[in-house]
């Protein structure tokens, strides 16, 4: 069943690769590179699953702010974090905000798509 997915990553090439794969699975996918883009999209569209990197720029961990924003809006969106940073503290903070799954970059596309489908299906 197709779902609306949001991918948030400042690595455009990686995000595009994930987008194309998920689109081929029938999902409708938007991409955001930065926090403000993600916030605008989350405000106006309903996403079944958000896939976000934790680090959205070299300066900060904007992905955590995205997760907080989703929870502030009390959205039922399921959240997948995929990141190159496996720091336990970051993971713990993300988990505290109700992240549903973690992936280490580079994630296997098939595994990611499988998790997306499972989470979106559970939500539905």
């Amino acid at each position, binding site marked *: 069943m197709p779902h609306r997915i949001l991918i948030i990553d400042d690595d455009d090439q990686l995000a595009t690769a994930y987008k194309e794969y998920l689109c081929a699975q029938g999902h409708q996918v*938007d991409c955001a*590179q930065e926090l403000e*883009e993600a*916030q*605008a999209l989350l405000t106006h*569209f*309903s996403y079944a699953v958000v896939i976000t990197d934790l680090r959205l720029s070299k300066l900060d961990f904007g992905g955590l702010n995205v997760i907080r924003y989703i929870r502030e809006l009390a959205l039922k969106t399921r959240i997948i974090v995929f990141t190159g940073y496996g720091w336990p503290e970051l993971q713990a903070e993300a988990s505290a905000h109700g992240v549903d799954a973690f992936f280490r970059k580079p994630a296997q596309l098939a595994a990611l798509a499988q998790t997306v489908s499972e989470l979106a299906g559970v939500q539905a």
Partner: protein
Amino acid sequence: MKPSLLQTLLEDQKALSVRFQPIFRLSPYGNQVDGMEGLIRGPAGTSFERADVLFDYVRRKHAETAVDRSCIVAICRAVADLPPNTRINLNVHASTLGENPDFVDFFRRQMHSLSLPLERFTLEIVEHAPNYNVPGLACNLRALRDLGVRIALDDVGLGTSNYRMILDCHPDYFKVDAYFVEGISRDADRRAVVRSVLCLAKEMNAGGGGGSSLAGRHIHVEPNGHRALSGAPSLSTAVAAGAMRQGFSGSASRRGATRAWRQCRAVRAYATKTGRNPPEAAGVSVTGAIPGLRSLREVRQLSLGTALITRRTYAEGFKLVIKRTSCHSQASRSAGNVSTFHLKSLFDVPALRFSKG
């Protein structure tokens, strides 16, 4: 590394596209296009194509000033292709006017470079942030009025378009949000709200000398009893230009719909015969030029009730945009290849009555 969306908006001239939304002057003797509102769409094929999403992002980036200027540049380029007597409405944030003493110079230079008379323009003030620089805003508005530019306040009654903003802007036009206009013929409370704004407009116009009016996303009602309508289809520049040259009048009646359908049929026949695209063919009516509409029934639906808008229609640049706050949820609920918008509220207008004096 791909540039950020904001960089793209500011540096790529093709990132912003322009649509024109006709503003009709309503009259028992036939509706006339009173002007066009220049609207901006974000990068095509992205979710930021929708103006509300785009400007939500822009406000979060605190980039209203830079993007407002880019929008004005884009719209003015498109306006240059419209007939020279067309009045144009442009949207500008109050913060852009409040914080940029050089805005008027920029605006004047822009118009001068395209040989566009400033008197053709109405600036519609929009704002979402609660605080803006009032002295700066007042100074720029005064300078713009001195140049012949008219001022409108957008979305009156919602958010920061409140009494304070009315006093700060002293608008020539009040644009009442569609929330207050939809279903007005059946709702006495809504009529009361709109009447109160009409009274306000009349009172504020008392010492101001001409032009003050009550406007709406769907209706404009002037103190002298003239009414106008906006919220009709948004048009590409080519179609808007063709419509203006042909003296397009909106079809808000069955007779109008029939006429539009006949025009549509004639234009299609002419286009087939000459090999030209319908919008380029003479005598185009905007209603008739919408490719998704093929039958009289559909045209009637467009005029009297519900319009069916196909993806093809969208792709060909004839997207119907009904500017109203509840439109987005309807749009997002649309499925498959067909989106359904209810237009009936547009034509509630004739049922609106205001007592004079």
